[in-house]
């Protein structure tokens, strides 16, 4: 079970809440203060992308954010319910998506990969997962 799990309806106004929650849990988990800005930005990017995917594909399920505190690391998984997008290949078989929104999603991925050293993008049957991990320092 994750340390904290957050589910929110795919609305842009909730992305800020996800950022705040993630940064606070990361701080408590022992992520270096200097990295908290990265956590905030990266989780915001991942959530914005998931919100865009859900909205463009008419998915009503919430976006899931799993915050996991481990002994020496802290990881965040942002889970969307739109299959076929994780590798940035665009929607396949679905209705045509808004190009501008898709570009923004790809720019978001670019920011995440530039920002986070340990990032994994997983394309599952039900949707995509962006997993980002930071080291923690014991307090």
């Amino acid at each position, binding site marked *: 079970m994750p340390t904290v799990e957050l589910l929110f309806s795919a609305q842009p106004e909730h992305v800020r809440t996800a950022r705040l929650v993630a940064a606070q849990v990361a701080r408590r988990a022992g992520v270096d203060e200097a990295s908290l800005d990265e956590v*905030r930005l990266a989780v915001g990017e991942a959530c*914005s992308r998931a919100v865009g995917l859900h909205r463009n594909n008419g998915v009503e399920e919430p976006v899931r954010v799993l915050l996991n505190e481990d002994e020496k690391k802290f990881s965040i998984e942002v889970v969307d319910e739109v299959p076929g997008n994780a590798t940035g290949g665009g929607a396949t078989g679905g209705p045509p998506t808004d190009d501008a929104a898709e570009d923004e999603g790809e720019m978001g991925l*670019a*920011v995440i990969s530039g920002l986070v050293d340990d990032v994994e993008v997983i394309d599952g049957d039900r949707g995509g997962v962006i997993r980002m991990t930071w080291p923690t320092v014991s307090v």
Partner: protein
Amino acid sequence: MDLSLSTRTVGDRTIVEVGGEIDVYTAPKLREQLVELVNDGSYHLVVDMEGVDFLDSTGLGVLVGGLKRVRAHEGSLRLVCNQERILKIFRITGLTKVFPIHTSVDEAVAATD
């Protein structure tokens, strides 16, 4: 924190002072503001980001969109930013090569290409 926007004119430049967080929720307001300015004939914009606490790729997209619009009228879009955490996002994405970034509004207003 929400987004705050205000504009003023210095010579032929329009200063857009932005405060708060520019993200997927608030970026459309900034986009509207930039579009409105260009539609009203302001083609030389200086976006002052000193009051910005947070900027994500949606915000970057809006700024790039603004740049495209003013360039269509042979205008300019300059940024004012001294905050390392905001500048970092421009660096990661390579946009420091696209936007002239200044340390003060005065410097941006005085700048010519």
